[in-house]
């Protein structure tokens, strides 16, 4: 056999045979170790991509709850500006939830444009992301804080509208610009903050969590619409930083909300029709009742209800409800009066949705305790 024949034999017979044997061994698992190495090597190949990831954008929109508050604010401001009344009050849904957190905040800027006699309100979602801009024709921003003519403006306002004393000027201050946003731990108080840039370092601007006026706004004499910076502290009345926040709740008998509800002298809404919306009534077991026998007012409080007032008003009865989480408020239609108060109250409570009779029982129990104390 020549060498050429050997080569032919190797190529045509032995090599295919060897390949067949290897294939059979591979398939039968006889070369498992080699197989693992071969397949494993693929994992070590570099991962190659061509092209950069493409990012997409989202519409700059506020969270639903905050958007609802902003819409309420916009409508209220425009309605106030259009109202013919002066020295009157209005209320929007408030910003009762925080506008931000430690990392970012929604912000609202109110800037007066003298050339067009309007206030432009810019709403930013975070940082400089603009969500909306709207204008309030005829509005000049103002605040119930600061000083004027050596007098304390918030004190003047407090004395006249809350304490019923003589009126001293000025009781509000027109400003060029107001900012509202969330600020964490400013003077140990994190929360929604109102800032008046032209006030400088103080007053107002050195306070934290100072916009807790429950959505109350005040209209002055010449188109000024005022915000209420607030201060902390029970029964502290007012100072140049603003008015103590309890005067915007029902906690104080002569609070702005109570005096307005009683239609007291000097107190008027900027329009007769109050905000109407479906009230969200919390479960009965979360409600407790306080009976104030001296003033004959009934207040129902829990941590989620900011205001729920039952008030005898001559021949009519009113219920005012607002909840901190829903930011909704309703005032019932006048109810027929002339019926004994406690029974009427129970009957009314029973008719409210989602409330059960246990509330009535709880009310009676509270009433009994109060009577015993008296």
């Amino acid at each position, binding site marked *: 056999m020549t060498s050429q024949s050997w080569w032919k034999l190797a190529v045509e017979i032995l090599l295919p045979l060897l390949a067949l044997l290897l294939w059979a061994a591979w398939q039968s698992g006889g070369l498992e170790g080699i197989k693992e190495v071969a397949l494993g090597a693929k994992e070590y190949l*570099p*991962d190659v*991509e*061509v092209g950069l*990831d493409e*990012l997409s954008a989202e519409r700059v929109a506020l969270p639903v709850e905050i958007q609802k508050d902003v819409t309420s604010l916009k409508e209220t401001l425009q309605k106030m500006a259009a109202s013919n009344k002066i020295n009157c009050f209005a209320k929007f849904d408030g910003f009762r939830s925080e506008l931000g957190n430690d990392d970012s905040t929604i912000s609202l800027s109110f800037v007066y444009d003298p050339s067009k006699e309007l206030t*432009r309100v810019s709403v*930013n979602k*975070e940082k400089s992301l603009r969500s909306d801009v709207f204008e309030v024709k005829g509005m000049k921003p103002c605040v119930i804080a600061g000083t004027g003519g050596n007098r304390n403006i918030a004190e003047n306002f407090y004395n006249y509208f809350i304490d019923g004393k003589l009126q001293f000027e000025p009781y509000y201050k027109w400003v060029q610009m107001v900012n509202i946003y969330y600020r964490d731990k400013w003077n140990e108080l994190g929360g929604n903050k109102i800032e008046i840039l032209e006030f400088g370092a103080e007053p107002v601007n050195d306070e934290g969590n100072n916009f807790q006026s429950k959505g109350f706004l005040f209209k002055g004499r010449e188109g000024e619409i005022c915000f209420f910076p607030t201060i902390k502290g029970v029964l502290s009345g007012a100072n140049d930083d603003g008015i103590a926040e309890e005067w915007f709740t029902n906690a104080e008998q002569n609070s702005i909300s109570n005096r307005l509800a009683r239609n007291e002298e000097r107190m008027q809404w900027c329009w007769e029709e109050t905000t109407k919306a479906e009230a969200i009534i919390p479960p009965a077991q979360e409600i407790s009742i306080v009976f104030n026998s001296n003033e004959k007012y009934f207040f129902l409080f829990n941590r989620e209800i900011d205001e729920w007032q039952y008030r005898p008003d001559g021949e009519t009865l009113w219920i005012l409800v607002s909840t901190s989480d829903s930011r909704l408020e309703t005032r019932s239609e006048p109810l027929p009066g002339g019926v004994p108060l406690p029974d009427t109250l129970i009957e009314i409570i029973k008719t409210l949705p989602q409330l059960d009779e246990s509330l009535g029982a709880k009310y009676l129990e509270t009433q009994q305790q109060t009577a015993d104390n008296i």
Partner: protein
Amino acid sequence: MKFNKKGMSAEFLVGLIITLVAGGLLVWTAYDKLSKADDKQAEVICQESINFRAISALQINKNDRDKIDIIKAQIKSPVLCKTIDKKIQGSKEEIMDQMAKKMARCWWMFGEGRYDEILHSSKVHILPAVMGISNEPNKCFNCYNLLIDQDEIKDKDGNEVKSITTEEFMQYLWDTPYIKKVSDCEGTECVSCRTDNDCVSGALCKEEKCQIIASLNYIQYIQQYGGSGMMVTMMPDDIKPHQGYAISILPKTIEQESTNWFKVGGIAVAGTAALVCTIGTGGACFPLVLAIGKIGLGAAVIGTGYDIIQENSPPESPSIEESGATLDPGAKVSIETMFEERRYSSIYISDIQTGQRFCGSGDLAGE
């Protein structure tokens, strides 16, 4: 457009190689032309080079894996952009129009916020797990230097207005439509149709679906067209004749530097005040702290009442405390920090000194 090795076929590879070679030739040609290009050509060359960079970037072992990678790399084609110096003239409205258009054009040139780190150069890391990966400094680039080349500014009726306030400019950017965008087919808008008559609420029939065509103003164009974006103004004064302004692009980074602008608070008074105007304040300008620093620029601001403090103020400058300001000591933000803000790709407009100090200018060809 993006391809992965798993889907690669021979056909694809050949296509890719042809594309890269053709692109390379184009880049080489464009590189030669860039220095001679007029403004419009330069804008187009820049935009094309960014597009090509985005589709051709080769990313090797982009994501960390369990295995030890020998190499980690991102290889990108050159950016063929140059800072365009432009003199602008006209009425108040015309000046605002030109400035706004240049801001939008800068956004367009750099991919409308669609890409992270589009200005970062190519990187190759051998044994990254062992050698580590060096972080590049933030990159930003001045698309335009604009000079208002006239002695006075008049409104469209010919009345002299002296200057354009930042509020006016911000308002112009918000009020002026720039581009139309077809909404993504979502929710109730996603209704099948054959003609426009089948659609309600102003929607039009596009690709057999009712879609809303929304008009976006300049700010919305930057914020929500393409990728998410942000527009920032840092002008220490009104827009005035003979003043220069820089329009800069700051692309988003993967490792995002994010300035908590609203965490910074407090109002500063006295001292050397500078007028700062920002979009975050509705474009309003107000005096805030500023110790004039070595760069000759004090603070600027963005957001609601926040200060930027020049950190390396010279000794003769009053300190914040001396100037009567009450600031949260943990809440100081420098202009440097603001220019490192990278949660979103951003367009900044600033006075020319600030823009040139913090962002690159000139000819990027070949980088």
